[in-house]
């Protein structure tokens, strides 16, 4: 039992709209140990809503249901919102896509990290500062003391995302959900941030859910990949066996990206079949 960190069985997220109910997530099931799991899909596939439902960040008008949504043996859907809040940011953390929007613009980076820490742990201000600085160091920010006092708009995207990672890791979470953590960054910076994330996740033995639209990136980063289409899981596969993917959607996604050194004109396109969404 200690292996499974998170168990998701038949997760559904439903949004009421003017034209009726829309199911963004339609019966997603998977389990996660202390490993790196990728969730891949295109926009509207429900990948982000899956992550948000686990985190407890589904918008209030939407309804979440599941046969089982258990984190470390705690049934997440039956505990109070207060208990939920004590998990969030403490034992389950989430990195969002764009540091420009996900960091508080009127608070220095250091204060935001300290705030996270002091919300969940009883530490003195001085200790908290020390730990925040150490954490900034751990995400390879060269001059932590300077960055500590900067506002988010004063740092680059890569630096902001590192600060975000530092903030999420400072409480030592067991599960980290990263929703497109590098999509807003330049390619060269992307790799730096991924390297840092990879190292810290490995060192601390966390479970990681990596949500992304980029199948190739996810497959190079994760142990296992869940491919989603129209709110459903169409395929679960080991990243190393992705080349032997069975589902036409997975194969189509792998194929349709231009690659350096592989000339294909025109590019193969996805021939979407209605039964994929059935």
């Amino acid at each position, binding site marked *: 039992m200690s292996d499974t960190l998170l168990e998701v069985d038949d997760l559904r997220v439903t949004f009421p709209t003017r034209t009726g109910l829309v199911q963004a997530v339609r019966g997603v099931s998977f389990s996660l140990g202390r490993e790196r799991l990728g969730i891949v899909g295109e926009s509207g596939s429900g990948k982000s809503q899956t992550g948000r439902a686990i985190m407890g960040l589904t918008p209030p008008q939407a309804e979440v249901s599941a046969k089982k949504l258990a984190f470390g043996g705690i049934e997440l859907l039956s505990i109070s919102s207060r208990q939920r809040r004590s998990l969030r940011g403490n034992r389950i953390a989430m990195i969002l896509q764009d540091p420009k929007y996900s960091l508080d613009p009127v608070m220095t980076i250091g204060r935001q990290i300290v705030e996270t820490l002091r919300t969940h742990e009883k530490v003195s201000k001085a200790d908290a500062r020390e730990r925040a600085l150490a954490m900034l160091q751990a995400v390879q920010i060269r001059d932590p003391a300077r960055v500590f006092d900067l506002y988010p708009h004063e740092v680059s995207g890569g630096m902001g995302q590192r600060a975000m990672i530092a903030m999420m890791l400072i409480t030592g979470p067991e599960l980290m959900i990263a929703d497109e953590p590098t999509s807003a960054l330049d390619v060269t910076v992307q790799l730096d941030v991924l390297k840092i994330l990879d190292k810290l996740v490995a060192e601390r033995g966390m479970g990681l859910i990596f949500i992304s639209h980029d199948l190739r990136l996810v497959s190079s*980063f994760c142990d296992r990949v869940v491919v989603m289409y129209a709110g459903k899981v169409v395929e679960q596969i080991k990243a190393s066996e992705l080349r032997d993917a069975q589902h036409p959607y997975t194969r189509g996604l792998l194929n349709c990206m231009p690659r350096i050194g592989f000339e294909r004109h025109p590019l193969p396109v996805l021939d979407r079949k209605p039964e994929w969404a059935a």
Partner: protein
Amino acid sequence: MTAAVAIEGLEVVFDRFRALKGVSLEVREGESYGLVGESGSGKSTLLRAITGLAPVASGTITVNGKALGKTRDKAFYRDVQMVFQDPYGSLHPRQTVDRLLQEPLAIHGIADGEKRIERALDEVGLGKGFRFRYAHQLSGGQRQRVAIARALILEPSILLLDEPTSALDASVQAEVLNLLEEVRRRHKLTFLMVSHDLAIITHMCERLMVMQNGDAVETLTASQLIGHRVSEDYTRNLLRASEGFVRTA
């Protein structure tokens, strides 16, 4: 063979910030030319300077043999059209597709609008059924098709493409790239295309320029890039980054 677009020592300055620091390039007629770089490298600014959307501080821009002055005349915009990055922002939210496509025709006083609109929609693979819809009723890929139709409706000879697919899903990106290649072949267009993605540029373009901090790093042919025959470290870094994440140790 004349150059479709020739740029000499182009400098663009915003207040005191030099976004372009004397860049030169030459795009031959009928060629597809790529500009690659990270954010802030000045690649989009270069396109915007050509269309007159960025303040040119010094340098010359020549399009189809004609040097451009401070303002652009109507004939210029008939010849040069642009497709922008974000199809969610570049289409008027309160105009139907029909009205969006009619606007360039009205500006240029073109009479056979009816036929042109039908043909343009047909060409980008959106049947007549899309003609009276609003942008919010379309998907991202369909919107970008409308933006391409709007650019094509004046039958330009040069198309400036600013990250035309970076807001789209991978599978939709493939469709739009295929469409762009097809219209280029059919109309013998010259492309000047900006992207941060080396793979897309090598797929679409014959030659390319790598940019960094408002400067040209180097100019390459697509085959040089594919064969990793690059001379600058920066380009090598970009190439490595585009191969994706590799776990060390």
